[in-house]
């Protein structure tokens, strides 16, 4: 939370000094940097143990990521991850664990693809309709978990795991040629969306096309931050996440909040499939990417539910995903990157925790010192003007 409290301008004694601000920056950056270092060291140890060069893989990956087309791949992948992670983060902020982002975005992409292919509208409108359908579908699917939680007390962890599997079945059914699908060779698709429904990208020349949806993703991040930190609703949501009982006493309708945030989470999740659908595939088929929701969980956790943190997390994971491809070509096992992902997650959170504790301890000490100083300078000035005497 230390990154949530931006120093206030008006605050007098509450305003951190430059030194304190620097302190805080060091604390905030120190964690991740330290963690990355530790993760790299541990991975190197694994490499050494298996008789490989402990350094070369990194060099290879970094070199490989120097290619423009790989950079585009990384950015595009990060865009998708970013949205999925935001969806997860909305839930986390409320202490809701939406494991269902995976099912939500797949179902949403499927339904949106069917809708988008069914008709054609002028360009911006077509895209907007598809996005709206995706959001609604995602929201609906998450809403089921929300309703089950508020009305029947079903744990969202269980219900979203179930809903993921059910979404798989529904998609498998709907994509049959007898329903909304078409068979193309050995593939099943939902038909091509007309060009008016494509989201134009940024052509970087040799690197390829960066998804235009990255703009939407960035906007989502801004909106996420604004809503959470600058609106009444966001305050209520965070309060509920911090303490459900305190939020209830403060006037938040906890059940409605749970439902609302689940729906919002699902709506955002619905957009996670859009970069690929609107920017690349223009159809939903059997080869549509899967598992993004789960990666989203990792990234939300890495980014500590903060939009900027999530952006870094998404880029980092996307980098490991894409740049690790080169390891294969050079005779290294690509799994090194997976191992490193796991290690990074652990190392990052451990260092976050260490840094958080350190910060907390310092804060308490400061409070304690201040108190002692105050008490020493003005002992017992509190009850002087009180008369006393028994009431009888």
């Amino acid at each position, binding site marked *: 939370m230390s990154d949530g409290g931006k120093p206030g301008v008006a605050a007098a004694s509450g305003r951190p000094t430059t030194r304190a601000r620097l302190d805080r920056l060091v604390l905030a950056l120190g964690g991740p940097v330290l963690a990355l270092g530790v993760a790299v060291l541990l991975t190197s140890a694994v490499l050494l143990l298996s008789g490989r060069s402990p350094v070369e893989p990194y060099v290879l990956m970094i070199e490989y990521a120097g290619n423009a087309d790989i950079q585009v791949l990384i950015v595009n992948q990060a865009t998708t991850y970013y949205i999925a992670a935001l969806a997860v983060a909305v839930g986390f902020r409320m202490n809701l664990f939406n494991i269902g982002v995976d099912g939500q975005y797949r179902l949403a992409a499927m339904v949106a693809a069917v809708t988008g292919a069914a008709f054609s509208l002028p360009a911006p409108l077509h895209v907007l309709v598809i996005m709206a359908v995706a959001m609604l579908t995602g929201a609906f699917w998450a809403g089921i978990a929300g309703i089950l939680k508020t009305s029947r007390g079903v744990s969202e962890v269980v219900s979203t795991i179930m809903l993921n599997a059910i979404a798989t079945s529904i998609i498998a059914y709907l994509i049959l040629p007898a329903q909304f699908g078409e068979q193309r060779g050995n593939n099943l698709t939902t038909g091509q969306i007309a060009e008016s429904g494509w989201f134009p990208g940024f052509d970087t020349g040799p690197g390829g096309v960066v998804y235009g949806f990255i703009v939407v993703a960035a906007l989502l991040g801004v909106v996420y931050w604004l809503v959470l930190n600058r609106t009444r609703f966001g305050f209520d949501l965070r309060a509920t996440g911090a303490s459900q009982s305190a939020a209830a*006493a403060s006037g938040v309708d906890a059940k409605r909040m749970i439902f609302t945030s689940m729906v919002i989470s699902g709506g955002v999740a619905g957009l996670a499939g859009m970069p690929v659908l609107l920017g690349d595939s223009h159809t939903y088929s059997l080869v549509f990417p899967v598992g993004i929701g789960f990666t989203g969980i990792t990234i939300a956790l890495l980014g500590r539910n903060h939009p900027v943190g999530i952006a870094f997390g998404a880029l980092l994971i996307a980098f490991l995903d894409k740049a690790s491809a080169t390891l294969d070509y050079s005779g290294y096992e690509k799994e090194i990157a997976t191992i490193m992902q796991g290690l990074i997650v652990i190392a990052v959170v451990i260092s976050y925790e260490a840094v958080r504790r350190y910060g907390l301890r310092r804060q308490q000490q400061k409070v304690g010192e201040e108190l002692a100083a105050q008490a020493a300078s003005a002992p017992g000035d509190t009850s002087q003007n009180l008369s*006393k005497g028994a009431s009888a």
Partner: protein
Amino acid sequence: MHAIVGENGAGKSTLMKILYGMQKPDEGTITVDGEQVTLHSPADAIARGIGMVHQHFMLADNLTVLENTVLGGESLYGIGGRARDKIREISDAYGLGIRPDVLVEDLGVADRQRVEILKVLYRGARTLILDEPTAVLVPQEVDALFANLRELKAEGLTVIFISHKLGEVLSVADEITVIRRGTTVASVSPDEVSTKQLAELMVGSELPTPETRESTVTDRPVLSVEGLTVHTHDAEHGDRTVLDDVGFTIHAGEVLGLAGVEGNGQTELIEALIGLKHADAGTIRLGDEEITGWATRRRREGGIGYIPEDRHRHGLLLESPLWENRILGHVTEQPNSRGYWLKPKAARADTERIVEEYDVRTPGIEVTAGSLSGGNQQKLIVGREMSHHPRFLIAAHPTRGVDVGAQAQIWDQIREARHEGLAVLLISADLDELIGLSDTLRVMYRGRLVADADPATITPEELGTAMTGAASGHLEHEEGDAATGSDADGRPDAASGAQNEENEHE
């Protein structure tokens, strides 16, 4: 019986935790039975016959009394029948009235307190540490507890005892140590000091008492409750009526004190008033408006202030900075927001003001609420609620766990607001506070308002009698009356101890 007194944060609990092996001292020695010891963990302390009842209950709700008791001491009597027999034996020996197989969560505070003591006795402790064991008990329960303690003392056990209720301390202790900011400032005998002197030793100032001088009660009703009934349903007890036809009116400038043993419906009443519980029957009116169907937020906006009984659960976001806590509960109101947008700047500035005005001891408003001490947290809450000029204030245990200095401050604030026409519902386990601050007194028992009394004449003991259901209707103060013979639970009465205590207030 050795009492330790001191302000909040003086270091009493810390000292005791060190004695119990839960924290490590940086310097110094501990000597038990003439032998210098180093305690690494509670296990070491237990092995040396030290037992501790903590300031906060150390009980696992979802385990039975038996399980809570044998935990950690399984090797003594097993965890089955033998342990159960032993518990019964101890319970009978000291009249603790323990039922081994109920879940702790189903117990009231007094019973929990007894379970805590049982835990210590079960381990054969020779030295008992009791950290504020009486904070949540009514006088009769306190008496019963002291009777138990005296029995233990008679058997040769040593009791170390911490309390903020100085009268209590003087009545039971054989020796008193006063500590201030981590050091011993005095060692006195109870015969030599009065509560006043003791308080001065503690804080360097006089002991305040809650007292309401002139009446400010008007005839303008602010809150009227009629026929309020609330049922709950839970799996264990089925349907229960927790509030049964409750009705009262609080006028502008009036403090209505509500006495009652915890668990008799006060919590539910508060929750029904603030809108956390839905009323199954009856009406609640605020001013001219009926608010029975209103949601919590609307009620708060309509001018109900709320000082919750459990500030950690209902009053604060412990991990959030002070200024966000200042917004909590009033997010829709000025200066915290305009329209749908928060105004963090204004909220921060106003938090500064509250910290200043209400003497919240903190180095700044960016620190988390959790890093403040309990008393300062409470001051923040009071400041926040008062800042919105409520018409009606629910004050539940407003000074629980707050030291004498801060207590006086909070009382002052309530009195001041009352003077300006605030209506207050005051609920407190501290009967002195209740009597001293209230204009009208009511007693709640088993979800009903069973008695009323005049705070000008009533004594805590008389009130306590009604709280246990032994008296009802209008309570009149009778000179020389030593309350009733025995209380409703059939536990032996020990009113004489309380009598002493009362005298200290003169």
